[in-house]
């Protein structure tokens, strides 16, 4: 059985599996795409971000992490 027919038989053949796959696919896609774009931006701007500034501050920048957003 080829890859396409596996996909077809698992997700596309029955309406219930198809709708479920669409719904959960949307939920899974959003955060993963968001992470992908954020990583892209961060890699493009290495050394310019707040996280880099904070790393340079050393020990004095370590306190109260939870509020630093």
């Amino acid at each position, binding site marked *: 059985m080829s890859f396409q027919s596996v996909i077809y038989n698992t997700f596309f053949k029955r309406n219930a599996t198809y709708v479920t796959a669409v719904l959960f696919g949307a939920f899974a896609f959003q955060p993963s*795409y968001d992470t992908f*774009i954020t990583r*892209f*931006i961060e890699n493009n701007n290495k050394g*310019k971000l*707040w996280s880099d500034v904070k790393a*340079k501050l050393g020990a004095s920048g370590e*306190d109260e992490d939870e*509020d630093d957003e």
Partner: protein
Amino acid sequence: MSYSSIFKKINSSFVTKSCVATVGLTSSFLLYTQTLSADALTAAEHGLHPPKFNWPENGFTQTYDHNSIRRGYQVYREVCASCHSLDRVYWRNLVGVSHTNSEVRDMAAEFEYDDEPDENGNPRKRSGKLADNILGPYPNEQAARAANQGALPPDLSLITRARHGNADYVFALLTGYPEENPAGVVLPPGSNYNPYFPGGAIAMGRVLFDDLVEYEDGTPATTSQMAKDVTEFLTWAADPFQDERKRLGLKTISILSALYFLSIWTKRFKWASLKNRKFVYNPKK
């Protein structure tokens, strides 16, 4: 068509044309008279156009340089803040951008704010919190003018958005004071010459000189370095959400263009059979 109606038609079009001609000639003449004085419509009147500088945040995917924002706040605090306010920026805005939470708390605590009155109704003061805005050097405009020979130092919160040339203008202005005024420049008392300032006469003197501040990260504090840092800080202050906007914009535009091309492909796929149909008419012989 009777003779009188023809005459009316000609007459009305003549009046219209006369009006248009009068307005046109008058406005041309007014524009022309402006060019008769020596510095009208020149760089001396409108200020030199600043060159385009290569800012760290130029480009679709580029964020602010937060090292520069941090140094720029230091320059603002040690130099600009003696005259200029920054009252639309709140202390909390700096947290996670240029300073840590505890650093900003300490900086805010050095300022005094009005508190609620005590039980006898006497006004009280309290130290600043993250929710307070950054206090300017003067309590009101009159005090600012009195301290600056009648000139009002503008609030810097939105200054890079409020001037032609934006950040380029601010940087060019800060670094653009010549060593000595060019020949023929006549300045009103108490003003300085800056070619980038419209009219050339600016109340602010040159304030940035080499090694005026000492950066904590060891960056050499040249005049242009300090001007760049403070301009970067002010650009951030005027547009604090640029980093996030660029991230979301990239995300949105990339996904929408993918969906756009997908929809084009789907349309062509679905219509392919219809577009390629061929009707053949075969009448019976």
